[in-house]
């Protein structure tokens, strides 16, 4: 049993803050400190969540949102990595893309919604487009910066050894930039998930965003919060998946993880 203690301690540290927040929240709702119609207690949210889950709607809605995110994110990852690598490995390419990227990047994806609906209608394509816009810039920027941070000493080494360009990019540039690239993918995926909900709030008949809109129209704050919680949980799970990918891909390097 004692061998389990470090794991148990870690788990306790992990869960401590959520439990305190939920406890305080439950207490505030029970004692009438806050009105239940404005902020239902966690137990009420849990009940609504369970209700959504067993009636099958939650999984269907989550799957619909996830599908949109994966489509938009896949497009963004393919284009973002391509553009980032092209801009990072070629000085001319970097200058060519710089202005366009830097001017488009600060525009929030939500600001594109009117145009997206005009161009792609209110179906799936416009949502995928918004998600793509939210995910693509962090991927491009992080890929570019990761490549540009390549140690000059390794560039010199490759020159000394006459390493051909393709191998240089594959074995020096990309592995060196990999942690930055994965950071870009993680930020991009997070943005994609934020954007799908924003897009679904505007016009959708399914998706997690739709649950929230539906809850609001029925004045069911418990359903609204259950929908919000679903977004948070799925977002966290996707980030965990990418972290695992990072642990598998990044080799030979140990990073600081706190004391």
């Amino acid at each position, binding site marked *: 049993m004692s061998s389990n203690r470090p794991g148990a301690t870690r788990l306790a540290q992990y869960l401590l803050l959520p439990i305190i927040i939920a406890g305080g929240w439950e207490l505030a709702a029970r004692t009438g400190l806050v009105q239940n119609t404005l902020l239902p207690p966690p137990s009420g949210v849990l009940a609504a969540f369970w209700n959504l889950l067993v009636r099958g709607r939650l999984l269907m809605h989550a799957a619909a949102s996830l599908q949109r995110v994966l489509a938009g994110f896949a497009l963004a990852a393919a284009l973002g990595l391509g553009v980032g690598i092209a801009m990072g490995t070629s000085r001319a390419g970097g200058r060519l893309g710089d202005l366009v990227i830097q001017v488009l990047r600060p525009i929030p994806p939500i600001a594109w919604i009117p145009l997206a609906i005009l161009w792609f209608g209110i179906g799936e394509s416009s949502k995928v487009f918004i998600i793509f816009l939210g995910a693509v810039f962090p991927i491009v920027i992080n890929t570019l910066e990761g490549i540009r941070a390549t140690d000059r*000493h*390794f560039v*010199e*080494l490759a*020159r*000394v*050894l*006459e*390493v051909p360009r393709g*191998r240089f990019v594959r*074995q*020096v540039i990309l*592995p*060196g930039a*990999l942690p930055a690239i994965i950071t870009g993918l993680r930020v991009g995926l997070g943005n994609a998930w934020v954007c799908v909900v924003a897009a679904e709030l505007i016009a959708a008949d399914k998706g997690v965003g739709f649950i929230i809109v539906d809850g609001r129209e029925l004045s069911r704050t418990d359903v609204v919060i259950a929908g919000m919680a679903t977004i948070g949980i799925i977002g966290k799970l996707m980030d965990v998946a990418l972290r695992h990918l990072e642990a598998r891909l*990044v*080799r*030979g*390097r*140990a990073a600081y993880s706190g004391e």
Partner: protein
Amino acid sequence: MGLEPVKLGGQLELRGVGKRFPAPGGDLEVLRDIDITIAPGEFLAIVGGSGCGKSTLLRLIAGLEQPSSGAVLLDGRGIAGPGRDRGLVFQDHRLLPWQTVRENVAFALAEPGGAQARRTVAEHIELVGLQGFEHTYPGQLSGGMAQRAALARALVNRPGVLLLDEPFASLDALTRIQLQQEILRIWQRERTTVVLVTHDIDEALFLGDRVLVLSPRPGAIRRLVQVPLPRPRQRGGAGFQELRKVIYREFFTDEEVLMDYVV
């Protein structure tokens, strides 16, 4: 182990080599009028203080820099750029942290795939005494082991010339002596031309057939010392100490007072 004898060659000629770098307020002259011929299979040690241009001299031979005047010739041909016919070991091991020892050594090969490449890589890992660490990442190696791996990578193309740029400067004294003996063993076996840059006079005397002493700013040949001592050399031996005095005198001509301390 089936290492074939090295192809003859590896003669280096430096003819009136000078190097200037552009700098604000006029060019900075780093090297002036360096004239020396290094025979195939010779071990030349270059010593000088920091800023005497000794590393620049090595970079000229490596082809990483071009001389401002004069010419650097390898087997009679001018050096136009870097090439696999010259192996280079840097002061830092410069191993790719995301590749294992074996991958790092194979990184130097023109054709890193295939059975022949695998064999060559394995032979050179064994040559530097790193067998058993093929799949280790550089972050898990000690400084001395990392420098051994860097040496294997520099040798894996069987270059006619091996260039060593203060390769042991960042190692502790014991590891340094150990690696000096290793270098000697490998050189005696491979008969590669070796040019070693160092600021350690004992190291230069322990290893070199000749020791080239560079004067500082701009680096010019101050003295070329023959080391006729048989190997392995005894660092405490009378001949060794005599030559050591000769070289120290080149460094501290104006500061005779130091002689009592260093000798």
